[in-house]
Structure formats: structure tokens, C-alpha cells
């Protein structure tokens, strides 16, 4: 069953901006799905429409078979949203924020308290339940938004840049938690600017640019399309001139570092041989960019060219 199905979804704002130009998108039930795109591409508009915060101009939205136009309340009940910006009452206690959210979904106070205890404990916030939300750290606020989104037990969780501004340790613990609830059956749609996050967590991906889906495939398929890897080579001695090695691209980054573009079919071994022939000894190498990041930039750049 499809968790989400969008057909010819369009949104034109009052100022004439065409944010979505007829999007088709399917997300299978149980998937961990990445929706990526540069700022202003249409990600937030899409999420806003799914969550009834933005009114669509035309097109069809179905969530677990429920049509947004015919059964808006069933669609809302199925979705939990973790928005990009902090949007809870800064003067409210943590426990009240979560319990009230359950109440808006019709969950009685006693049951809401039980559920709030469970999600707040899972997200490491139970001890802070009586703290006013504005007194929480940035990472805790993000986790509180996840707890709030989960308290009504949605089937589809939408996370709009959930780890923005969160330190590495908390980010990784959030990843573990998201993996865990996805394995338990929850469908997750994630937008993020940390492409490493999408590559690590998601099985399928769509890239949106200028209001259109420019890529929609399985993550391994997409990554397999990467023909060139980029590495940063650290040399033992500063090179005199950067040599020309046929089939490879080399560029000086600083005194002892080179950026190497290595076609996947050629491999890196021959490059090392060529550099050794020029008395250049490589002492270490690392990826210049996350693999998905390279593809993302390529796809978005090709979109830019089309729209100039």
C-alpha cells in the first residue's frame, strides 16, 4: 500500500509564484524516504499541503488511501509533523505541549499522559517534563518536536530538517531512534540539508527543484550512477607543478593538497602510480564530498541550466 501518493500536485501562491508545477510522487508504506532539494525548491510547500497548512491549487493527495479533499481529518490523523522551525508555545511546560497535542487528536488526558511519558522517555526528555520549553537546549527542542509529532501514533512521520543545528552526538542518537521507529513499521519522509543523513537513513529518494521532481529512485540506484569520485590527496612534499594525468582531473587546493577527480571505471590505483612517477608521495586521502552531495549538486546544477 502507498503511504503517500501525489498526482499532478500544483501550487501557485497569490503573488504568482509557481511553487509546485505538477508533482507526481509515491512513497510506499514502511519506507524511509528522502525528499531533497535546494532552498525554495518546493519541499516545504509540499509538506505544508500534506499537513493542511498550505492550500493546494490543484492535484490529488492521498495518504494511506485517504483523499485529502474527501477525508481531510483521516489524512491529518495519519500524519505526524516535525516542522523545520520551532513552533511550540515557548512558555508552556514540556509535558503540557505533548499532552495537549494528543488532546487535539481526541486522546483523553489519562491516555495522553501515558503516551507522553513513553515518547518523552524514549527521547530522553521525561526528566525535563516540567521545564518550560524555552529553557530547553536546541537539541532538546528538536526532540520535543519529535515527541509531540509521535504522541498520537501517526502512520506517516514527516520530518522537515529535524537535525538542523543539532550537535553530532545528538544527531546520531536521533538517527538511531528514527531507524528504530521505521523498523517498527512507521513510514518516514525526511527532508534535510545534511545529505549524509539522507544517505545513511533513507532507502528511496526524490529530488525536487524549481517545483518539479527531477529525480525519483532507490538510493542505491542513484548512488550507482555516480561516475566520478572526488578525493583530497595529502602529499608528503609540496608539489612543484600539478602534473597532467590522462583520464584524471587534478587541481591544487593548498600547498600540500590536491583535489583528484577519479572516474569509477578507472580506479585510483593508476593515479597513485602516475603521481609516484612524478616523485609525489600520497600520505593520506579522504572523500572530498559525500557521494549523494555530488549527485545532488549535479542534478540541481543541470536544473539551473535548464531554467536560465
Amino acid at each position, binding site marked *: 500500500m502507498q503511504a503517500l501518493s501525489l498526482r499532478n500536485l500544483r501550487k501557485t501562491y497569490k503573488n504568482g509564484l509557481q511553487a509546485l508545477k505538477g508533482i507526481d510522487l509515491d512513497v510506499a508504506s514502511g519506507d524511509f524516504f528522502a525528499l531533497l532539494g535546494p532552498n525554495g525548491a518546493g519541499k516545504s510547500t509540499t509538506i505544508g499541503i500534506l499537513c493542511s*497548512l*498550505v492550500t493546494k491549487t490543484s492535484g490529488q493527495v492521498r495518504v494511506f488511501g485517504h483523499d485529502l479533499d474527501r477525508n481531510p481529518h*483521516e489524512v491529518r490523523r495519519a*500524519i505526524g509533523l516535525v*516542522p523545520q*522551525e520551532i*513552533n511550540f508555545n515557548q512558555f508552556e511546560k514540556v509535558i503540557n505541549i505533548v499532552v495537549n497535542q494528543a488532546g487535539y487528536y*481526541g486522546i483523553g488526558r489519562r491516555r495522553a499522559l501515558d503516551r507522553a511519558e513513553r515518547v518523552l522517555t524514549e527521547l530522553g526528555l521525561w526528566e525535563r517534563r516540567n521545564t518550560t520549553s524555552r529553557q530547553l537546549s536546541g537539541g532538546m527542542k528538536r526532540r520535543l518536536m519529535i515527541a509531540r509529532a509521535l504522541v498520537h501514533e501517526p502512520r506517516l512521520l514527516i520530518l522537515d530538517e529535524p537535525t538542523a543545528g543539532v550537535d553530532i552526538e545528538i544527531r546520531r542518537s536521533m538517527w538511531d531512534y528514527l531507524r528504530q521507529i521505521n523498523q517498527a513499521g512507521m513510514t518516514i519522509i525526511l527532508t534535510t540539508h545534511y545529505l549524509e543523513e539522507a544517505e545513511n537513513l533513507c532507502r528511496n529518494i526524490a529530488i525536487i527543484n524549481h517545483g518539479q521532481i527531477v529525480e525519483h529512485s532507490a538510493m542505491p540506484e542513484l548512488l550507482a550512477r555516480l561516475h566520478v569520485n572526488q578525493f583530497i590527496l595529502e602529499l608528503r612534499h609540496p608539489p612543484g607543478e600539478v602534473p597532467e594525468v590522462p583520464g584524471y582531473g587534478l587541481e591544487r587546493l593548498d600547498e600540500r593538497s590536491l583535489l583528484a577527480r577519479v572516474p569509477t571505471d578507472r580506479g585510483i590505483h593508476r593515479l597513485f602510480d602516475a603521481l609516484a612517477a612524478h616523485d609525489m608521495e600520497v600520505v593520506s586521502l579522504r572523500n572530498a564530498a559525500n557521494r549523494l552531495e555530488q549527485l545532488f549538486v549535479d542534478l540541481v546544477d543541470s536544473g539551473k541550466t535548464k531554467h536560465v
Partner: protein
Amino acid sequence: MYKLVAFQTILYREIYRFMRIWPQTVLPPAITTSLYFLIFGHLIGSRLGDMGSVRYIEYIVPGIVLMSVITNSYGNVVASFYSSKFQRNIEEMLIAPIPNGLILAGYVMGGVLRGLLTGSIVAGIGSLFTPLHLIHPDIAAGVFLLTATLFSLAGFINAVYANSFDDISIVPNFVLNPLVYLGGVFYSASILPETWRAVALANPMFYMINAFRYGFLGVSDVDVQLAFLVMGGTLIVLLIWAWYLLKKGIGLKA
């Protein structure tokens, strides 16, 4: 059933909010109206004689109580709803399966309850200065309910259109307060010149305050049935307006 729980949640949250910040919500009307009773009612009023065939301090009590109901019902909804918009926690409700009517009802009921609380406190303080009479309690209760609902709705509409905290203080300062003071809280229309009397009749507050006073003292400058018609008509217009704003998501959705 789930709708009832959602409504109770909004109402509980609204009551919790105004009780949590009681020094801003409950205390000021108590202090302000105590001063009104002391200065206008007791010190000045004792030298004025009767107004509308009752002692001056008795005459002004219903108007001051209703003034408190009006400003607090309005103030509660406009501040609470705009604050939810400003902090964007209104989205917590917009993404949930709550019918628009229930969101509106929850906020309005919150405003009515704050009006009831502050109105009761002010009436209690008034009773320290002069014995209170409730000649027509049903009329007083009806006027209270209509007025509190009406101004809660008005506060909601103001909050929907507001884009800054300045926008939520303009109407109370420049529209509401002048209309209340000119609505006959402190005087009978019978002492006004003919022209000003006609102007007073165009002020909806004039009908509310007089009908409320009729409930307490049995005296009024206007026909009470007409007053209920004015209040009912205004209420229906505001109700349709507020519901339309929520349905269209004006000021709330993109």
C-alpha cells in the same frame, strides 16, 4: 467523542493560560475597578445624588462590571490567538483533525470564562461599596453571555488580521475603550443633549450596558428587547465572519 476531547483540550489550555498569568489577567481589573468604585462611586458619586432614580454608585456598578467583561473577553482571545499565531503553535491545531468550528468555540469559551471570572470579581468588589440587586437575573445572565461571546469573537477576528502586537492593541485602545466609556457606564442618556443622545444610540455598547443595568436595577435608557436584537444581530454577523476566516485560513494558511 474525539471532537469533545479536542474542544476540552483547547478550553483547558485557555483556562490554564489565563490562570497561569493571573497578575496580568485577573489582578488589573480588580485594582482598576476598585479605584472606579472608590473615586467615581464613593467620593464623587456621594455628591452627585441620584442617576436614573437610583444612587449614583448603584447606577455605575453594572456598567463597570460589563466593561470588565468586555475588555477581558476581548483581551483574552485576541492575546491568546495572536500569540499562537506569532509563535506558530497555532499549527498544532491546524494539522490536527479538529473542525474549524471547535477551534473557534474553544477560544470563544475561554474568553467567556475569563469574562465571567473577572466580571464576578468586579461585582464582588462592587458589593463592598454598595449592596447589589439583581432584579432580573435572567436578563443580566443573557446580556453577560451575549456580550462576552460577542467580544470574544471580535477579539478572534482582530487576532486573525493582526500582523504585529501593535495591531492587537489598536482596537482596544482606540475603538473599544472610547465606545465603552461613551456607552453610558457613568451616566444616563437622559442627561445628554439631543444630538449626543442620537450619537449614543448608534453605539452598540450603549444597548448592552443599559440592558445589563436593567437586569440589576430595572432601569434602562433603551428598550431591552431592542438591546437583545442589537446584540443578537451583531453576534450573528461576527460569528459568520470569524467562521469564514477560519474556513478560508485567512491569515493562517498560505
